[in-house]
């Protein structure tokens, strides 16, 4: 994983701006930046997270070039290995947009706005799969996993953390003590690896990541087995920082929603294993809100 560094000039300029404009309202600074920056060299910064298979580097490069050509501005992807880091970047105002998991999206509340929701198998929904090792024939559901070693993907993951903990809670158990041992792998893919290698007895996985992995790395998913599928939740959304201008918001939303309408876009969607984007509605995340409330986090 090679983090894509900010161009040095941009970073320094922003540091200076932040230093002098400390008193300015967060909403005001993109405008200020717009005033000093010629439009041609403007850069939209998009945070990427393990909400999807974000370490396919050539796909990311192609997608970035696609977005740049359609938007007419520079686009910079900032992949991070944990949601927390991307959330911090948003808090610091260092991202314009981010592809987040629904849990962090809701957690950030007013800081972000819903930009677009990807379509997974034609619909803006996904699930959490409960998986065990392929050779582990005994467990049939969460109820059989008491005392197991459980791999969470990320403490801000919906399907990889919130859903299994909520599930345990529904069984009337304490999620903190239900498992013998738990650990974070910081990505769904590595959670699959943890179960495949036997490091963990079970893990909860984003159904979209799982399905994509089944396509690109069948030898990995083949060593695991799905024993339970959760209800549907709204798909991890593209979110816009609240400071993003209406023009940029509309521009990126338009490009994303229009990807299915041109050849390059369709090809990229196919490689992303997505069917397209819709504007979406915040209400598709209500079930996640319910789970978060149960843990007192919303």
């Amino acid at each position, binding site marked *: 994983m090679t983090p894509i560094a900010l161009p040095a000039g941009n970073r320094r300029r922003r540091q200076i701006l932040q230093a002098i404009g400390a008193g300015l309202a967060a909403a005001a600074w993109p405008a200020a930046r717009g005033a000093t920056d010629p439009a041609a060299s403007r850069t939209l910064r998009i945070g990427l997270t393990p909400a999807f298979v974000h370490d396919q580097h050539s796909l990311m490069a192609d997608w970035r070039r696609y977005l740049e050509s359609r938007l007419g501005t520079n686009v910079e992807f900032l992949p991070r290995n944990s949601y927390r880091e991307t959330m911090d970047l948003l808090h610091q105002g260092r991202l314009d947009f981010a592809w987040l998991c629904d849990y962090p999206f809701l957690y950030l509340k007013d800081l972000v706005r819903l930009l677009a929701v990807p379509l997974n198998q034609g619909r803006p929904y996904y699930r959490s799969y409960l998986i065990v090792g392929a050779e582990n024939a005994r467990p049939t559901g969460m109820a059989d996993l008491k005392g197991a*070693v459980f*791999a969470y993907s990320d403490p801000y993951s919906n399907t990889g953390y919130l859903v299994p903990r909520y599930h345990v809670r529904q069984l009337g158990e304490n999620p903190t003590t239900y498992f*013998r*041992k738990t*650990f*974070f*792998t*910081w990505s769904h893919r*590595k959670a699959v690896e*943890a179960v495949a*290698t*036997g*490091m963990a007895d079970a893990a909860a996985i984003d159904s979209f990541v799982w399905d994509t992995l089944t396509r690109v790395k069948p030898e990995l998913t083949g060593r695991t087995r799905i024993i339970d599928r959760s209800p549907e939740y709204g798909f991890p959304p593209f979110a816009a920082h609240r400071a993003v201008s209406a023009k940029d918001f509309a521009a990126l939303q338009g490009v994303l929603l229009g990807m299915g309408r041109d050849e390059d876009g369709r090809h990229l969607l196919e490689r992303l294993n997505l069917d397209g984007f819709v504007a979406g509605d915040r209400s598709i995340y209500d079930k996640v809100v319910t789970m978060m409330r149960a843990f007192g986090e919303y």
Partner: protein
Amino acid sequence: MRIFDRSLRHKIPLWGGALIVASAVAVSGAQMVRAYADLKRDTINSSEGLGHTLAKTLFPALLHDDAWRAFELIRAPFHEGRPEQPLEARAIFVVDADLRVLVSSAPRAMPLLAPLDTLGADYPQLATGLRLGNRDATATYEFADSGFLHVTIPVAEDGARVGTLVITHSKDAFLPRFFSIALGGAGMGALVLAILLPINWYWGRRMAEPLVELAKGMGDLGKGQPAELPASLYAYRDELGQLYEAYRDAARGLREKAALEQEMLQSERLAAVGRLAAGIAHEVNNPLGGMLMALDNLKQRGRMDPAVAKTAALLERGLQQVAETVGALLVEARVVSRPLTRHDLDDVHTLLEPQAVKKQVGFDWQIRVPEQVGIPAGFVRQILINLLLNAVHATESGGRIRVEAGTGEGRLLLCVANTGAPLPEAVREHLFEPFVSGREGGHGLGLWVTYQTVTQLGGQIAADWRDGEVRFTVSLPLEGDAA
């Protein structure tokens, strides 16, 4: 035959070969033991190096209970899909203070939090070892009858230990590398053997061959027929060379002694023959004197019939010859002899003619001598008669006998040649020795007497075979210058 009784020809190359093979095996064996020890030492060293690096990076992960990070770190040394390398670990894991697995490279065999005692193999022994041992220091554990080698390294910083890193190596993994080293060693050994064994064989043969020959010669020495050992067999002046010299001296002495004995035997035999002949001569001499006296009386009476007178003269000359022959055998009695005349040779012709006619052998008589020759007539007659008798006997019927007599350079030369078969080699060698006969029924004294007579007169006799003839030539010096 016991092995130690075998010939040096076999023993020297065998012992040498055995020593070379034993040395090669011993050196190769030592090399292999050394290679195995080195391999183990290398493994432990690299293991400790890897362990210390791992322990340093594992410490924060384990301290923060980041099991997945620890797992990724611990799995890094394993190369997926690559066959197990000798120095690569079979398993790497960390146990906590209670010896439960905190993280392991093979989670299926070593699940999280599993007690070390329950992991099978020799891990219960390792658990005991770790409980008793000092876990704050690096250690190596190897148990009897176990195929594993464990290196333990504390995962600690500033004295705070969060666990003990265990790197397990399978000794089986050494084997392929060990075998490849061993194979190389064996190849070298075979090469050394291939060079040294033929050299040893050659050297052994060189050492043994002269000894064996010498031993054989020494054995024959006792039997009195020592073989001649060529000096080229062993040309050096060391102890063996000195032995050879001594052997040659001894053999030479023995051969000289044998020749001397042979000569003595011959002389004794000759002396015995001489005594016998003298005895016979003495017995013959007495009646002979009477007969000669009677003939003398007959002549003095005078007026004899000419035929009788001729016969009487013939008788007298014949008896005279007998007297001279016998006189020659009687060493003490000197007989006064008369010189040879042509009549004597005619007499011999007359005497032998009837036998030649009877055998149907032709005579070729060529006499070119003066009326009188200064040489005792009796001896010449005897020599000629002996040779002619032999010739008549040896010539098959229809053959020819050639007799030549002549004088020259103060010598009388006689030649008796016949067309008989050449003399056999065995006969020719001992031709002039007594009791050696070329024909059946012969007593073998004729030629010996002839030889003794010729020798006594200071002449030479020789026999050869030339132009289809057996030829006897006699050369006798004339007395004074009567010729």
